[in-house]
């Protein structure tokens, strides 16, 4: 918990201002084509969304496949058969 709070504080105090400074240093180019900028942003964000979506769903599918009871490499946990989980 402390680490999470520490990370959040660090990101607010250090990372975000650094990013802002880096981007802020570059002058906004005049006469940009808003269509190009906006569509490019959209495609980049869609790429991120699809990559994250496939990684997360792929991980879940693998987890469910690998840790099913009938998997050849499945091993009983130390609780199984002890009656501890039978309440």
């Amino acid at each position, binding site marked *: 918990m402390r*680490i*999470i709070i520490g*990370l959040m504080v660090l*990101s607010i105090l250090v*990372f*975000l201002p650094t*990013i*802002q400074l880096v*981007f802020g240093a570059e002058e*906004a*180019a*005049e*006469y*940009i*084509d*808003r*269509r190009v*900028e*906006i*569509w*490019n*942003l959209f495609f*980049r*964000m869609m790429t*991120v969304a699809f990559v*994250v979506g496939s990684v997360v769903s792929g991980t879940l599918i693998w987890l469910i496949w690998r840790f099913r009871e009938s998997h050849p490499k499945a091993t009983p946990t130390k609780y199984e058969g002890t009656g501890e989980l039978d309440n």
Partner: protein
Amino acid sequence: MSGHSNWPEWIYIGVVIALLVWVGSEAWNIERLVEHVPEEAKVIKVTGQQWFWTFEHEDGTKETGELHVKKGVPYKFEISSKDVIHSFNIPDYLVLMDAVPGRITTVWFLPVDEGEFPIQCREYCGLIHYNMRGTLYVEDKS
């Protein structure tokens, strides 16, 4: 929890935070770039009312339902409304900004292709909203 390793969780949290920061800063930066109005942009006052658009150029020329602009010249729209909320939209140039009574909203764009482009209202504003249209004419500078 002895003997239990949780480093995958920390990697996961780190990746999520990094992605969120990256996505946020990208979007913020593009928004900043898109909203940066060139100083020499010509101002066009846009007024929406049920159910048509009027435009007033810097030299006082007024147009209704039609807007003539020069290719390669940046324009800044100062948008307002006389009655209800409208939304000024030029789909081909990704220009979209609400027209709010009593308030002036701004958006700028650079016409780069010659031709005729539709202007439309993008906020339902009453009976004839569907026909609150106009035409943008982008003409050569000469």
